[in-house]
Structures are given as C-alpha cells and as structure tokens.
C-alpha cells in the first residue's frame, strides 16, 4: 500500500519530466539483455542499472524499463514493489540499512537503531531534510558474526556500537 502511495506522491511531483540516463547505463542495460534467452529476464538488472544511476526508481524509470523488457508498465511496477531493495521514492546519499534480525538483536541492534533515530532525527523509512541520510530497518544481512551490523548503500559495517557508528557517520558526506 505504501508503495502505491509513494508512487502517487512521486507522480504528482516534478517527475513527469523525460528521463535522462547516461551512455554507460544504456550500455549496461544493453549488455544485460544479452545474458538471457528472453527480454523479460533482464527486468531486474535493468531496474538495478537505473537505480544505481538515479538513486531510486521514479515512474519515468519504470516506464523506461518496461519499454526495454517489453512488458506492461503495471507488470514492471508489480515486480519493483515485490523486492525491498528497489526504492520507489528518493533516498538519501547514504542509505543506512540496520539489521534487526535475531543475531543482531541479541548483540544490541535495537539500541543501535534507536541511537541512529535520535542522532539523525528520523525514523524507519525516512530521510534527513538535507538528503544526506536515509534510515531503514532491514532483515538479516548475512553478517551475523559481526553483529550488530548495517549496510551503507552496499558497504558492510560490522561489530558496531554507538561510538563506532558516530565515527562512521562523520566520514559520510
């Protein structure tokens, strides 16, 4: 439901502009199409390529992806909403994804998350007004031996506590 709402919000903003994507992303998309016997299979790599360039998947990107893989837009929207890592609304430059699953929880993830909420003044699924940070609770990141842990975009940070996470935030411009 929230995904639908965010789509509506995005549609009503300034995002009906034409999509501008780089030649490198276009080349990446072309390359991904060669890896499968049909176009449909490339839908995830195409969405990833677009998200890596834009930071999220605005409606124009979904429309573009649909045209590339030759599927109805509604179908591509259904696929994008199924997977939690496809961002259907803008996220900050540094997307803090804090693992809250059992091993991390046993080692203090709840406290770490609360610390981040307080420090950044935002909650789960929110972004700081300056667009620097987004915060999210996520499920097991396959780093349980380094609990508690989080990912900043795709980078893993393990064995965290409040002091370490404070130092980490300082390095993220």
């Amino acid at each position, binding site marked *: 439901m929230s995904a639908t709402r965010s789509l509506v919000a995005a549609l009503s903003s300034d995002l009906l502009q034409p999509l501008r994507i780089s030649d490198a992303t276009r080349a990446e998309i072309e390359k991904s199409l060669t890896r499968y016997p049909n176009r449909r299979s490339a839908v995830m790599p195409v969405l990833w390529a677009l998200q890596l360039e834009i930071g999220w998947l605005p409606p124009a990107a979904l429309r573009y992806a649909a045209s590339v893989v030759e*599927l109805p837009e509604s179908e591509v929207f259904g696929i994008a909403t199924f997977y939690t*890592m496809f961002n259907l609304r803008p996220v900050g430059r540094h997307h803090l994804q804090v693992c809250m699953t059992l091993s991390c929880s046993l080692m*203090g993830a709840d*406290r770490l998350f609360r610390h981040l909420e307080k420090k950044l003044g935002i909650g789960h699924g929110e972004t700081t007004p300056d667009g620097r940070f987004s915060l999210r609770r996520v499920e097991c990141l*396959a780093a349980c031996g380094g609990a508690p842990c989080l990912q900043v975009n795709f980078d893993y940070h393990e064995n965290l506590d409040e002091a370490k996470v404070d130092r980490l935030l300082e390095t993220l411009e």
Partner: protein
Amino acid sequence: MRGPLLFSDIDTPGLASLEGYRRGGGYATLAAVVGKKPADECIEIVKQSGLRGRGGAGFPTGLKWSFVPKNSPRARYIVCNADESEPGTFKDRELMEKNPHLLIEGMVLAGYAIGSNTGYIYLRGEFEYIQRILDRAIDETRAAGLSGANVAGSGFRFDLHTHLGAGAYICGEETALLSSLEGFRGQPRLKPPFPAVEGLYACPTLVNNVETLMNVPHILNHGAAWFRQWGTEKSPGTKILSVSGPVKRPGNYEVPLGMPLSQLIDDLCGGMRDGMKVKAVIPGGSSVPLLPASLLDTGLDFESMNAAGTFLGSGGVIVIDEGTCMVDALWNITRFYEHESCGKCTPCREGTYWMSEVLRRLEHGEGRADDLDLLADLADNILGKSFCALGDAAAMPVQGALLHFRDEFEHHVTHRSCLVNRRRDGLSVVRPCEQAHA
C-alpha cells in the same frame, strides 16, 4: 589452516585472482576432467562421495544430478543458489568473496556432468560487491579459455552469468529463485515438477548451493573415499558453520560433520562472553527448532540433529544466552517470517501475521489465557499446509520454543511479566517486557 577442505587455503593472499587460485592447483581438476572423464562417471563419483546439499535440505547431490534428463531436446541449466538469506548464515558470502574461482570451477564441472552449457549465479541484492568479484573472476576464466566457447580446449561450451536479487528471503527457495531469475515476482511454484525436470524456462535445471558446488572440484580431484575421511557414514565431508550470538569468537568454522555442538561453541568459539551461559542454540538457521542447553552434545550432522528434533539446515548456529527472553527472541523470529512471507498462500501469509501478533501481546504483558494454545494451533495450521517450505520454516521455531521453554511463555501470561527480566548492560536493549516491569 582454518579448516580441512574449503577453508584450507581461504585466507591465502591473492586467492581471488585466477593467478592466485592456479598457484594452489586451481583448475587442474577442470583440465583433467572436462572432455576427458565421461560425464556419467563424474555423477557416479559425486554419488559415491555421499555429498549432501549444503543449502538447507541436505538432499544427496549426486542423486539430484542424476535426475536431470540426459537426452532432453531442451537446453539444460545450472543455477547456483547464492541468495544466502537464512538468518544466522554468512558462509557463502565469505566463500565467494575470498575464493570465487572455486565456485566457478565447481559450476563448470557440474555443467559438464549434467550436460549444461549455461549457468547462473543468483546472488542476494545486498551482495553487489560479490557480484563484482565474481564478474571479474568469470571474465578472467573466459579470457583464459576456462569458460566460454571451448572450455580447456575440450569443445565443451559453458557460459556463466551472475544475477543480482533485490531483497526477498523467499528467493532462496529454489522455485521462487527461478521465478525471480525469469523476471517475475519471486514467488514459489508447485513441486513436482522439480527443477531438475522442469526448472528455468521450463527446462531441466540443477539448483545447488554455493558450498555444495565448491565441494565438487575437491571430490572429482581426490575421489569419493578421500572425501569420506571426514564426517559420518550418512553425512560425509565437512560443513561450514556460521556462529553468531554472544560467543567469544563468532565467525565461520569448517568442521568435520558430526562434531558435537558443544565442542564448536566451547573450543572453537572460545565459549561465551562475559561469563554468560548458553540457554539455547538454533543449529541450522532461524528456520529450525532450537536445542536447549541440555542437548549441546548433539552432533553437527544431518542424522544426529534430526534425532534431537531439529535440523542441520544451513549451518547458521545462533547461540542464545541465559539473559535472553525466549518470548522476545521468538517474536523477533516470527516477525522475520511475517515480513518475508511472499503472500501467495493463506496459511503462511495469515499465519505468520497472527503468530507475531500473539507473541507481541505476550511480550507486552497483554497475553490471554489461551494464547499458548492459539500459538501452537497457528503453527500446526501452517506446518505442512503452506504452498512452500517458508511456512514450515516459520512454524518450526515456534514449536521448538514452546516445547523446550513453555514455562517462560506461561509466565508471560500468568504474571504479565518476564522470567528473565534482566538488563544486560552494554549488550542488549531494554526490551518491552523489561520496560513494562523493571
């Protein structure tokens, strides 16, 4: 040496490069086998080795390979399950990060054995950096003629690709994984037909876990008898166990199958931190029933774990200390399954929600007299009745916790407070049950 087999050279600098891998004898098996040893003989050796799937179910690998039809007119595929999203499991990540070529060699060999010319490695979305490591390694092998049009000059063609998921536990289930790879929402499909007969693009498809495939070059190189020097009769070989929780040295350990759980925790991991005591251990990822501290002598192999009422599963060993409230821990687990249920079938979609809801109110001191029966009933109505095994994975931890720690759950109902109710400074949080009654 961190382990006898897969971990014997895992920390060697440069191992992730083709040159480094070759320095340790890498791709010698591929050169000796592809185009030289009959494919049937390869399958037979893997069968004789007794290798069982390391992804969770422990299905005999050689047998699975032999189910792939030999003279089907359709293409055959091999898919590596690198989704690694079972809570508590982090072995495939280390294996692929440090030794990507061992996986590639295993996949080319498996492809040769079943007559497949195309392989895909399905990685969970969070493993984007591993995708880059693997893509680089695949490029190296193509340039060196170890994959691609003419593997090691044998005339055998094998093309290998990586595919990045995007956040969905269900995509570790093999049929959901195939749906996802085909560009659909990652929802499971009915079995049978099993993927070996009708999998990717309705073609015969072999799905194996990363660790399973990494055992293959060693087995084809040294033979079945050599492999059986480790482990037990029915669970030969080694297993990589990912240990997490408040032990002194958490991490990945490669041990011969059958090692007692207590030896892993006390000797290899150095025991518990800060004088804590073990309360329970989840031996095979959060999907399996837990073992109470009284059963810590159970052997880490498929049959011993089954005899103790649980499973070796993915080898994700989660150690829970005495200061942990079981209601809280179980609530955390059921929230995971509630979040990850794909929504396709009613027992799982609704049942996981209701189990979480009942545990939430127990944890908040709002439990009702019949809540434990309700919880057991919910679990019973999911187990074996959901479309795929995600439902079973959600139900089994509930049954295990109720079996071994019922008194703690009852205490939450009758006293509206927690038996443990201990604040663990520096380690944990103030949990709801502690907040309400501290």
